[in-house]
């Protein structure tokens, strides 16, 4: 380009700036051949070391067992192989970069040069030519002359993406006529009248006397195991998980239905009504249930009411009783959808 100042050794030249220029200071490597030689050696050693580190990488890869764990203060227990591979490859790559930059700084010219800019806008004649070409094209195509063609084309282009939208419909195969819609699906769980409440993981049924006052159990419906095998997914678990707690019946201030507890044992959904995290922390003294995600807090002694946090709705309560063998069972499904709110929820 013609506007490059030849960059022999001139410093940046003054453009339109009102200030004088700063003189260029020569580096040691510019004036002292010994210093230049030293810089050359430095750069070459970095590249050489990089080569050696690649060999070290291969040696580590071949000789260190992948299961060897070492303890390193600060980092803790770590796999030796990971550390050594990271060190050798990282340093070898780093040294290529360090060498190149040292080279540029010490041995390549450090004189700044000046180039002129041009306005981004095209010169007027180019713009005129473009406009003329456009006009000619418009004229020749008759785009302006055939309004029917123009309008139908616009219509066709507008509709052209619609098939793609239809093609996305079967991302979910449900919700067709006769099948349940999303809000119906979200409104039902595996719980139904007489369904036994079993301990999560062990699937042991629970008798009221197994649960002392202040006690807490994570539980699921007895038919969950079968359902999970049948469906091959965890969907049912995500809705049916409950938490059982026992309190002194006199401490229960309110419930979502009359007599939904069994001798002070209450069952509440485990899925937060905010955006759906499973709830984990229960404080026995206050009967508060705390969601670890955004700290919504529900009072299980008071109908699962929200006492704190961003959740807007009570934790849904499951009505429970015992069957004729004395095991805890559900008396019905939840009376409201569990988990986060949704549009059709009402």
């Amino acid at each position: 380009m013609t506007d490059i100042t030849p960059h022999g050794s001139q410093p940046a030249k003054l453009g339109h700036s009102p200030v004088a220029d700063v003189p260029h200071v020569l580096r040691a490597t510019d004036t002292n051949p010994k210093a230049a030689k030293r810089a050359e050696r430095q750069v070459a050693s970095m590249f050489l070391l990089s080569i050696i580190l690649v060999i070290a990488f291969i040696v580590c890869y071949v000789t260190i067992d992948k299961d060897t764990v070492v303890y390193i203060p600060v980092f803790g227990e770590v796999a030796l192989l990971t550390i050594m591979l990271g060190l050798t490859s990282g340093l070898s790559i780093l040294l290529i970069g360090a060498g190149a930059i040292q080279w540029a700084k010490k041995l390549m010219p450090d004189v700044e040069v000046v180039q002129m800019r041009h306005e981004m806008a095209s010169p007027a004649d180019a713009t005129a030519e473009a406009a003329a070409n456009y006009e000619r094209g418009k004229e020749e195509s008759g785009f302006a002359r055939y309004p029917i063609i123009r309008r139908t084309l616009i219509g066709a282009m507008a509709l052209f993406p619609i098939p793609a939208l239809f093609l996305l419909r079967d991302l979910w195969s449900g919700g067709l006529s006769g099948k349940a819609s999303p809000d119906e699906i979200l409104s039902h769980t595996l719980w139904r009248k007489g369904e036994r409440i079993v301990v999560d993981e062990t699937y042991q049924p629970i008798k009221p006397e197994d649960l002392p006052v202040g006690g807490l159990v994570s539980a699921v419906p007895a038919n969950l195991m079968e359902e999970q095998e049948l469906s091959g997914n965890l969907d049912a678990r995500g809705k049916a998980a409950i938490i059982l707690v026992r309190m002194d019946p006199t401490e229960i201030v309110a419930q979502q239905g009359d007599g939904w507890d069994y001798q002070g044992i209450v069952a509440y959904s485990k899925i937060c009504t905010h955006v759906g995290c499973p709830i984990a922390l229960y404080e026995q003294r206050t009967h508060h249930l705390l969601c670890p995600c955004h700290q919504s807090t529900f009072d299980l002694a008071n109908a699962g009411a929200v006492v704190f946090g961003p959740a807007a709705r009570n934790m849904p309560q499951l009505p429970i009783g015992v069957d004729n063998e004395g095991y805890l069972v559900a008396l019905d499904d939840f009376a409201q959808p569990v988990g986060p709110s949704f549009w059709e929820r009402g």
Partner: protein
Amino acid sequence: MSTTSPVETAGAGAATYVDQRLGSNKFLARNLGKVFPDHWSFMLGEIALYSFLVVLLTGTYLTLFFKPSMVEVIYDGSYVPLKGVSMSEAYSSTLDISFDVRGGLLIRQMHHWAALIFVASMSVHMFRVFFTGAFRKPREFNWIIGVVLVTLGLGAGFSGYSLPDDLLSGTGLQIARGIVQSIPVIGTWGAFLLFGGEFPGTDFISRLYAIHILLIPGLILAMVTVHLIMVFTQKHTQFPGPGRTNDNVVGYPLMPVYMAKAGGFFFIVFGIIALVGGLVSINPIWVFGPYTPDQVSAATQPDWYIGWLDGALRTMPNLESHIAGFTLSWNVLVPAVIIPGIIFTALGAYPFIEAWVTGDKSEHHLLDRPRNAPTRTGLGVMAITFYLLLFIGGGNDLIASAFNMSFNSIIWFLRISYFVLPPLMFVLTRRICLGLQRRDREKLLHGYEAGRILRLPHGEFIEAHEPLSVKELAVITSKTDIAPIPTPQKTDIDGVKNKKYAIQSRRSKLSHFFYGENVPLPSAAEIEAGQAHVAADAALEAPLHAYEDADQISTFHGGVLHHPGMAATNAEQQNEH
């Protein structure tokens, strides 16, 4: 002196071969000497680019081993604590990458660290561009691309974080689903379509996989390419300095200095990521366990770049309304959909808003010093303050336990702060900027205060001033003073009513707000007079220095020069009397 090596001959041959087919030498002729200005802050964008390349390389390696499937398998790898546990194939293959592929953990950790560095450097790069006004004409398109890139970066990070299907990432997905479900009218269906039914279903990981490794990286790559082509054709902006104007670029030529520095820097970034990936553990998914929708780990924390959203979710009051049988979950909609929507829209629109307010239609290639655009700088600091408050909200459980505070007090502190602190920071920043402008003006008029008071032998006190260095003078005088848009007339000279009066007057008011209190630079004549004055001062001081040398006048008591026979300070003088 010049020797021609076989490599060079081969290179020249190759260049000719390609040129005869593509005409590439024209391009090389124009561009091998292309000048790139240098500044440390220009490396931020480079870090983003290089860490993205590392993400691509390491991510491609991970795809060779990762299985994006939610089919349940029984783990039988070498991580003993999880042997025999039922888990998804996605999770078990990530365990395999971590424990059974030699170097797999290194690459996984490099991928994750590179992703974090990518998002972080991109964000800081964006701040640099904002505060220096680099987004102004002609670079508005590149600003918009940048905003899209940041958004895509967040999407890439979140989608990748969710792939291994561990307890932590699954909880993140559950939250994401809850957010989608909160969208009015289409939310419930949207969530069912995305997840192929209920949560968690069995489709989502493989769908997310396509998004994570193809869709988003492809879009990022395309955007980055356009971004760089624009930087190349428009030439880089530069900071003010001696010899630097709005019409030139001062810096190093592409070949060889810039190439060596930028190329070398790629290896530095790459090398550092490899070192960190080898040494510092990140996302140890084996600790969290496989995902199941009814369990959660105690303190759930997303990657840092999602923290602000989490904070917004945590601090939003629990509002929900029920209208005509439908539910509107403001408690989710506002923090997770509406606020981010507003933030990103405002970010993308900012250059156009500012240009409209200032009426400035000229090209800008010389960067603004943040102090010279106090309103913009104030707005930027205000936005950062708001972001930080949200981010703090995301860690409220950590703060609560570290400082033994109640959630309630933290949340109310934040809720009030959202409305109070950002405007406060705006006002404060603007005032600081104006103060700095005033100081700059002083410097131009009176030189640079040396911090020494001189007492001349006949008793007069003068404050020593030193002339500004060439560099400082260039930097300070780079400020352009633009007059705010004048107040419009209600009617023109002929008494015809100005129909656009309302909008024009609003614009003029905003423009006055933007520029109004700016401290104008002194005129050239004033600067000259100022410098002359400083020179005169220096002349006054000169004999004193000579005096000092001769008499060994020492500098005591806060830099007051004394002649040995004189009272040292005013106090001592008083005592003498």
